[in-house]
């Protein structure tokens, strides 16, 4: 029996596990170790303690700037995306003519890749700014709001779908009962709809926060960090630290570890906070 189960383990789990180890597990632990080393290729690693972590923050202000820019971006983008997506979901669950068509249109940008999205919005924003004699890289706030507009355009549709599914799950009987009891639409929204879609809110916040934090392609295509790295987000800063010049691989890896810890802490904190508000049903 033991032998048989071992054989099935090889059939069912081994292919995935082998790929998972090579693409993720081993690189992950190697990355953790290498963040305490100086290296160019990996095989020439030399242990240097926490020096890379110190350099990540002290060599230049890039990492701190990128961190601050990412936090500012994430905060505004997450609120905008979720509020608009939720409002759209409310409107699209009212049995209005053309609901399917609207849903199709709002969701479509989500399927377009980050690089392509970046260049589409570069064209739009540069076209508007040209009338005033600017371009998207003349001022970091153009790049900032450009990224906010781009990621709203991209992610609103996705979140809207999740909110619609949540709203459609609310039983009509409860809504009807509230209406008969004379509850105002606002009251119904606050006391029935929002508490019932808390699981959707949890998911959407999780997805928007992690996606905004990890944004890379859009950032690279829209401004590539210009002007002078002011619109560089964390992922792009890490990429540039690794591949921008030789000798900074260790620092790049240390930044990546800090980035990972940040994403994990923020995501888990958010999950904990919103999960605790979900109602049992």
């Amino acid at each position, binding site marked *: 029996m033991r032998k048989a189960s071992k054989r099935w383990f090889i059939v069912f789990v081994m292919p995935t596990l082998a790929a998972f180890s090579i693409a993720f597990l081993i690189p992950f632990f190697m990355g953790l170790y290498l963040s305490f080393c100086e290296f160019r290729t*990996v095989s020439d690693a030399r242990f240097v303690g926490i020096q890379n972590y110190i350099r990540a923050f002290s060599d230049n202000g890039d990492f701190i700037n990128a961190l601050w820019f990412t936090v500012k971006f994430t905060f505004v983008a997450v609120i905008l995306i979720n509020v608009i997506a939720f409002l759209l979901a409310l409107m699209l669950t009212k049995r209005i003519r053309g609901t399917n068509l609207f849903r199709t249109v709002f969701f479509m940008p989500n399927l*377009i890749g*980050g690089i392509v999205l970046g260049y589409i919005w570069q064209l739009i924003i540069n076209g508007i700014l040209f009338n005033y004699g600017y371009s998207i890289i003349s001022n970091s706030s153009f790049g900032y709001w450009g990224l906010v507009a781009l990621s709203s355009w991209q992610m609103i549709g996705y979140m809207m*779908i999740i909110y619609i599914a949540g709203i459609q799950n609310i039983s009509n009987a409860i809504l009807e009962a509230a209406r008969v009891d004379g509850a105002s639409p606002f009251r119904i929204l606050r006391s029935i709809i929002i508490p019932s879609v808390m699981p959707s809110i949890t998911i959407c916040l999780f997805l928007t926060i992690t996606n905004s934090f990890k944004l890379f392609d859009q950032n690279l295509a829209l401004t590539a960090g210009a002007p002078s790295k002011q619109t560089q987000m964390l992922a792009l800063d890490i990429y540039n630290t690794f591949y921008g010049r030789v000798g900074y691989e260790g620092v790049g890896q240390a930044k990546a570890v800090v980035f990972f810890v940040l994403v994990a802490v923020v995501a888990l904190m958010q999950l904990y906070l919103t999960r605790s508000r979900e109602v049992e049903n």
Partner: protein
Amino acid sequence: MKKIKFSNVLIFILLLALSVVFLIPIVTVIVNSFKDKFSISQTPFVLPNRETFVGIENYISGINDTGFLSALFWSLFITVCSVAVIVLFTSMTAWYITRIKTRFNSLLYYLFVFSMIVPFQMVMFTMSKMANVLRLDNPVGLIFIYLGFGAGLSVFIFSGFVKSIPISLEEAAIIDGCNRLQTFWHVVFPILKPTAITVAILNTMWVWNDYLLPYLVIGSDYKTIPIAVQYLKGGYGSVDMGAMMAMLVLSILPVVIFYLACQKYIIKGVAAGAVKG
């Protein structure tokens, strides 16, 4: 329609206006792809006139400059194969580690879940070096990497669904003389089909649009579409805006076709994937 409510008319108009706003960027790119490259970046919102209209010239130069047809082929090849491999192997893995409860299997499950919150930057350097050493720096090797990288989310979604299947079905199959592989293939996988579609959709959207992973693993020998688009920008020279616009349209086209063809599944897949997440 019994009575048309006034508020609903207002909402309809609002939604219509918003749809126009949502479509403007795409329409702008399409319009500009037919314009002379010098009149694009400064006046993108002007329709082409007799002087600036260039027909399909931008498309020809875009396709030639980037090798778009080969990029389209590699994108299709990598996406289709990766998604098929991911769906097949992760569903098997998820079923096995959910049904056979050993300490090792539950450790595996948590490792898969854990991998979902690790940003790509954490492993990008070591992973691409490793892919190099193991000679996985080609399209086929990339499919293997995608299986490893997509495993987290896919195993997680499949496991969530396997837990809800009554085990008695599988026991009946075993009693009837099926081995585990037959049980999985004839009994479990058909039940998993809707979930398999969800997993396939989510992974297609990811692999098709992925830029950094294929770029780091195979470089520009086998360009995928995102790499081909970014390649136009590369270097320090000025960008041929005409070719760029044409490329943007050509990259959006397959996505739109895919979307219109499988819209029902995509919308369902996104909603279902979120519930499990």
